[in-house]
């Protein structure tokens, strides 16, 4: 990989300079452009970025190259494949974009480098949701599941043990997070939806859907089970075997009566199900709701009284990275937290980890709509310039405080994960 990237880069530069300077001028030319001696310039600033397609925007890599000269090479895979790749091929990437819940698998594997908090410029400005488990106002955030602050710190530079108290060794620098809930089609349902229990309401027989990713799907099911009063979990993100049995039983019963139209696994599937009217209520991700809405189809990311299931992702660095490459990785992470990318993410309906820098890169109206739950003064546009909401619209679920404050649990990997996966197969086969 790294060899290939080097050669393509030299080739580009060569073609660029061919007309003007020729082969001899190459050394001098590149030296003059980057301001480094030739030896330094021969090693282009390239970072291999492993992650899912959702976070790998071309806009971000373009802007990053412009601002820092770092060329980002995206390696795109599904959530599961990203984890697989970190475990099996830790040398195949430099920077890893992953979620906190997968750290329970990644850190013990020893393939993740502990990052130095002191080298992250904005570390102290990272929202206290990650560092302390509370909102900027001091309100506590729900801590069921693999909440970020449980796995943010390591005990030492080479430790594989998470530290419950802050240390300078950080596993994953947060970049983006959100609170997920059910998406609904208000034009078809035609009545208010207020509880997770509605997902398994026979009224929506054959028109409901959940996520076919076992660890996340079962938590959505747990939200339903709790909402219907069948069981109160000590921790929805870490169930006992009996709780797994009970949750899967509820799912199987619903499946047998034909409650589900389909299960979805990726972003586009969820958009298609909802947009085509195959489903009217389903677990969903925020940008998917936005996508359906931008097609002119009414869709709401419905806030529910039991709260949200939250997730958070950010950057890890491969253990194989060291020296100048590691400096590059820090430079990239610092750039990412410096505001432009944060504003870009906020405009998609996500939240950025450092709020202050993102705010500086957004208009007051944008900030008011996305973060404060205020009605939009002018039309709200997405990062690509398409109009997402007309003036006067308000964000589903309201402000940052309202939404993140109502988080009930976090995406997680359970201690009984192996058993849960087996039961999930039973559910699919039922």
């Amino acid at each position: 990989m790294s060899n290939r990237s080097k050669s393509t880069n030299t080739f580009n530069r060569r073609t660029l300079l061919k007309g003007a300077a020729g082969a001899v001028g190459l050394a001098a030319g590149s030296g003059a452009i980057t301001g480094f001696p030739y030896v330094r310039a021969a090693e282009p600033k390239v970072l291999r970025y492993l992650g899912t397609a959702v976070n790998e925007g071309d806009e971000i890599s373009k802007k990053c190259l412009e601002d820092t000269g770092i060329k980002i090479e995206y390696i795109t895979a599904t959530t599961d494949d990203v984890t697989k790749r970190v475990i099996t091929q830790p040398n195949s990437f430099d920077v890893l974009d992953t979620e906190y819940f997968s750290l329970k698998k990644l850190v013990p594997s020893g393939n993740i480098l502990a990052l130095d908090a002191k080298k992250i410029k904005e570390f102290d400005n990272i929202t206290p949701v990650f560092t302390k488990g509370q909102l900027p106002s001091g309100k506590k955030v729900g801590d069921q599941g693999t909440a970020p602050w449980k796995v943010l710190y390591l005990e030492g530079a080479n430790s594989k043990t998470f530290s419950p108290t802050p240390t300078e060794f950080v596993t994953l620098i947060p970049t983006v997070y959100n609170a997920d809930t059910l998406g609904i089609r208000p034009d078809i349902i035609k009545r208010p939806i207020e509880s997770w229990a509605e997902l398994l309401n026979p009224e929506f027989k054959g028109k409901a859907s959940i996520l076919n990713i076992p660890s996340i799907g079962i938590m959505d099911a747990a939200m339903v089970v709790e909402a219907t009063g069948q069981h109160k979990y000590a921790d929805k993100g870490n169930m006992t075997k009996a709780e797994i049995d009970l949750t899967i039983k509820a799912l199987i019963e619903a499946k047998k009566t034909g409650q589900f139209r389909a299960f979805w696994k990726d972003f586009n599937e969820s958009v298609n199900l909802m947009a085509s009217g195959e489903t009217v209520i389903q677990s969903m991700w925020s940008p998917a709701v936005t996508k359906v809405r931008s097609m002119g189809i009414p869709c709401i990311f419905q806030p529910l009284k039991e709260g949200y299931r939250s997730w958070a992702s950010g950057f890890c660095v491969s253990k194989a990275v060291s020296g100048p490459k590691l400096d590059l990785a820090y430079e990239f992470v610092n750039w990412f937290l410096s505001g432009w990318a944060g504003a870009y993410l906020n405009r998609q309906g996500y939240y950025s980890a450092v709020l202050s820098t993102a705010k500086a890169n957004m208009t007051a109206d944008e900030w008011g709509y996305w973060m404060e739950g205020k009605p939009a003064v002018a039309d709200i546009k997405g990062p690509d310039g398409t109009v997402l909401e007309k003036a006067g619209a308000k964000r589903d679920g309201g402000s940052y405080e309202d939404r993140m404050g109502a988080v009930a649990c976090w995406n997680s990997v359970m201690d009984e994960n192996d058993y849960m996966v087996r039961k999930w197969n039973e559910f699919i086969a039922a």
Partner: protein
Amino acid sequence: MLSRDLARSAQVPLQLKVPLRFDKSRFGLTEIGCSMVQDRKSFVAWLQSVPMMLVFALFFLLPMLLVTIVSAWDYNEYEMIPAFSLRGYSDTFEGCIADLPDLCTILKTYLNTLKLCFLTWSLTLLIGFTVAYFLAFHVRSKTWQIVLTLLCTIPFWTSNVIRMIAWIPLLGRNGLVNKGLLGAGLVQQPVEWLLYSEFSVVLALVHLFTFFMVVPIFNSLIRIDKRLIEAAYDAGASGWQTLVNVVIPLAKPGIVIGSIFVITIVMGDFVTIGVMGGGQIASAGKIIETRLNALQFPAAAANAVILLGVTIMIIAALTRVVDIRKEL
């Protein structure tokens, strides 16, 4: 199948040694000269079979061996542990005795996979044979035969996924078929079982894989000596009798080869079943995928070994009905 081919390729040098001994007696060569020639010839023969053997060893035998070894390993949340454990297998058959008379997950899954496989196989066979029969016996000119066969390949110009997904806007609740039915007043409510059902899965599988039946059957039919059919006609056989007693027996190798293609693909498929079944239909391949995604490699490998075993048994039964090697 593959291992049999391998065995055959390995046999080649052995067979070559026999005529060489005749050469010796006929020409009276000295012992030394002869053994040199013999060595060189057998060496060349071995050399010729080396690329094939290497390909099989590297890309078939070795991975199979690794999968089998790994299937007997232990594992935890993030790594495989090279210690002997049959956990992958015992977990897979969990509840198979305890849950009786209810079926356990793995049996239910395999019954379902076999059912889909059988439906797909019989439909592709029926359609594939009809198409091949038409091409071989009703289309007279070679040119048209080639043109029409090429026409059959057109769907293959796009990817599997596209061909599969194309069904969704057609069969959905608000899809073209339902709109047509509603518009014609044939139904009052949209027909739900058109999509995300076993119907849609089988439909997509038949659509995707019928061509794998057409080609080998066509290949068998085209090689039937036309005089045999004339003879049958002269002997007073009806069209149906000719088909059953002459054409089908002679097309057996093509039918078996096509069947092997279709069965092996459908047994291992999880993408088509996943997309067209809306993720609600279990398949043997899906179980492996779920396990892989949870990083439980040994459990996935154990399931792969089980799937391989089941598929090999089906293929063995098929080749017992027809000895392909003899017929080819």
